[in-house]
């Protein structure tokens, strides 16, 4: 393959992103199994051939959606600095705010966090590996918190993720914004709720 001129390479990268955006949107709204490569092509206004030029299969596309969301999560969720008792809580709060905003606003992230797992065995393993990396980010943030025991830590993390990931059932654009929801959930888990 001849070397591409820089401008052309940029176009290629841009097209790739658009295809991933379209796939993420369709996977998150219709589900992976119900979406075809033809649907993805139609959504971007391109031919199926153009999509196949960038991705060999729908499975590749699913992995690309997951990988991009994971890269984003690693970059954003690990930004805040470590150390200190209150700092660990502040860091978790920031992470959760970014998590809620992405969950309610970025289809690729929604697929990473809550998409149905594919039934194909090999693909399942690959997707689970990417998800594990994502979960690891939360594990690390929760590990820095001053909690009583390790077993508390596990349930703390699962309660936190469950509370946040369930918000798409009840979120309303005219209600609390995503970051405020995240802060309230973290506060609820941090402080004793009962008198």
């Amino acid at each position, binding site marked *: 393959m001849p070397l591409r001129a820089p401008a052309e390479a940029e176009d290629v990268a841009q097209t790739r992103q658009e295809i991933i955006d379209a796939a993420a949107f369709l996977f998150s709204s219709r589900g992976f199994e119900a979406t075809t490569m033809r649907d993805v092509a139609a959504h971007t206004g391109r031919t199926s051939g153009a999509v196949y030029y960038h991705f060999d299969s729908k499975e590749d596309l699913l992995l690309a959606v997951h990988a991009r969301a994971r890269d984003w999560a690693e970059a954003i969720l690990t930004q805040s600095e470590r150390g200190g008792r209150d700092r660990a809580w502040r860091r978790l709060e920031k992470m959760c705010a970014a998590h809620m905003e992405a969950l309610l606003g970025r289809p690729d992230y929604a697929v990473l966090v809550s998409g149905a797992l594919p039934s194909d065995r090999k693909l399942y393993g690959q997707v689970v590996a990417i998800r594990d990396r994502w979960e690891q980010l939360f594990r690390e943030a929760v590990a820095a918190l001053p909690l009583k025991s390790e077993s508390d830590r596990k349930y703390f993390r*699962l309660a936190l*993720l*469950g*509370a946040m990931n*369930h918000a798409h059932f009840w979120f309303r654009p005219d209600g609390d914004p995503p970051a405020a929801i995240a802060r309230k959930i973290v506060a609820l*888990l941090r402080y004793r*709720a*009962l*008198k």
Partner: protein
Amino acid sequence: MAGVSPAPARRSRPRRDNRQQALLEVAARLFRTRGYEAISIRDIAQEAGMLPGSVYYHFPSKDDLLLAVYEAGIDHLLAGAKGALVSSDRPLERLAATSRAHARAVLGGSDAAAVVVRVLPRHDRLLYRRLVDLRDEYEEVFRQLIAELPVAPGVSRKYLRLSLLGALSYAPVWHHDGPDSPVTVADRLLACFVEGERRSS
């Protein structure tokens, strides 16, 4: 084929004959394991050993089938909550018992209940509205239970309800027949919300 057939008055859920009951169970299992979008009437017919036409005879559309699965799931959850509510007269124990019933239902007790906590399609406004009404009917139990709790100053009862239900409903995503029983799962998740450090003033 979006849309649901005209609404019967709530609270008068139709009696299901054996055939319909069997179809509902198959549909609930498939929706739970593979998601609502990925499943077709044809899949459900095949799994139930029927022709697609026979499925349509009982349920005019996949949306109607989902609505029926939801009704069955909510009935299961409400029945569990009803039993839990009479188990104690102490508010926190009542909430704990109801949370356990919820965890038991979604972690294997009822495919239909598991569908209720994971599936909420938005492609049709009328269907969405009716599913949300059903969910509200059940969430009302939690609203009342949490209204009885002596919460600390600054604690939002609404967020406590939504977060607890979220945490309990997320368990099927990670539990996979793990070592902790549904009762332990419910108790540990509830503890996360009611314990914690004291707020410094």
